[in-house]
């Protein structure tokens, strides 16, 4: 990556997304275009929320699947689930209302899809908890939506704009390292 590029190289396979037919590059490109910068600045907090909602839904699903006692259906912690649902709705509002420059059309479509995948995963968890479905198929469906969300989360990362799934600056075993000077 060069200093002015915001995104992975255009040839990087991280961008090989199913919606490749859509117009425009997935990456909003440079840091010299004010409209793109405004878009990235607006979307950054929503991206962070979407990543955390993905982790919340994954964690809630994990806890429900591993709960002692088992039995039919999914033993959901509804308090945790409601918070994740509400935060997802807020992030979806932000994604829906942001002004999208031409440079960011594919990026925005991918983010929109990411939010939709999370919403679908949430609905699946809810249905399992309500015992409307609890079979292997329903479980796989939730996992599929979460996995797709994760792929999109990584694909839409823009590290130079502070849009990353992990904050490595504070990692327990990699913080406080003398940074290479070269």
């Amino acid at each position, binding site marked *: 990556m060069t200093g002015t590029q915001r995104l992975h190289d255009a040839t990087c396979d991280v961008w090989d997304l199913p919606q490749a037919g859509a117009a425009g590059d997935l990456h909003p490109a440079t840091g010299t275009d004010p409209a793109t910068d405004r878009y990235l600045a607006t979307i950054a907090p929503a991206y962070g929320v979407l990543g955390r909602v993905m982790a*919340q839904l994954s964690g809630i699903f994990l806890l429900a699947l*591993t709960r002692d006692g088992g039995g039919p259906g999914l033993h959901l912690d509804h308090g945790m689930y409601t918070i994740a649902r509400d935060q997802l709705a807020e992030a979806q509002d932000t994604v829906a209302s942001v002004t999208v420059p031409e440079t960011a059309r594919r990026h925005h479509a991918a983010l929109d899809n990411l939010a939709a995948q999370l919403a679908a995963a949430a609905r699946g968890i809810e249905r399992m908890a309500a015992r409307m479905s609890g079979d292997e198929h329903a479980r796989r469906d939730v996992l599929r939506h979460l996995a797709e969300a994760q792929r999109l989360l990584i694909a839409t990362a823009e590290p130079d704009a502070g849009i990353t799934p992990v904050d490595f600056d504070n990692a*327990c075993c990699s913080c*406080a390292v003398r940074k290479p000077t070269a």
Partner: protein
Amino acid sequence: MADYSIHVLEYSYVPEYHKSGVLYGAHNEGYVKLPYCYVLIRSADHVALVDVGYNHKDYGQHLAEKFGVENWRSPKVVLAEMGLTPEDVDTIFVTHAHFDHFGNVEDFPNATFYIQREEIEKWVWAMSLPDRLKWMMIAVDPSDVLRGVNLAAQGRLRTVEGSVENVLPGIDLHLAKDSHTFGSMWVTVRNDGKAQSDDTWVLAGDLVYQFTNIKNDGSVVGVDEMYTPVGLALGSQMNLLLATEEMMKQTGYDAHRVIPIHEEGLADTFPCRISDEGLRISEICLADGAESFVK
């Protein structure tokens, strides 16, 4: 009688790490080498690991460039030195959910994983907090939780609540609540299999980074030696110290039986060798009849 062989296997390292990250309060005291390791616990019946390292596929290059993490080797390469493959590993104890301990689960297709339920529950809670409280989410990769749910769906993840004895024969798990992380765990091996063991080893995870956390200069408070916590406490330093006391108590206060995994000085205490890949293998103990891997 010893049931298990225990080896600390280095899989990567950081050549220069701020000492203050390792030892609370050691500001402006320079740098130390920080090895990255996991621990192999092996008997005639089981091959177990404590932690799995980070997901190099996703983050290796980034870590290498940003933090100078060097010489990462895959579990396949690291375990080959021990005559094992990742497929041989049947049990994995994840001490906490930081990405450099819980990130590489996909490399172990046949293992059942154990993690404290508290760790996952509180991370989910932390993930729901606003950005101004984001410090609580440091070093957690949302994707790791997703990898965890995949394990759970396959029936390969067990969430543990507090202390559990004999998860494998003679191996206990212990919770250090609100310490380095919300639900950090240490692993105790009673190698003679006795309830009141005379041959106990403690695998400390990140509750202790180096021996200095157990035996630090105590002149500041007028004693020869004192425990001093690691540089990162998401819970409290008090809880880190109390966990250290409990770990030490389990070993009969034999400090060299509490095994830190970021400790270059294991080489001074235990037999070891450097592999062809330039990574250290430290032999903590051998099961009865087992051959040494460091000769």
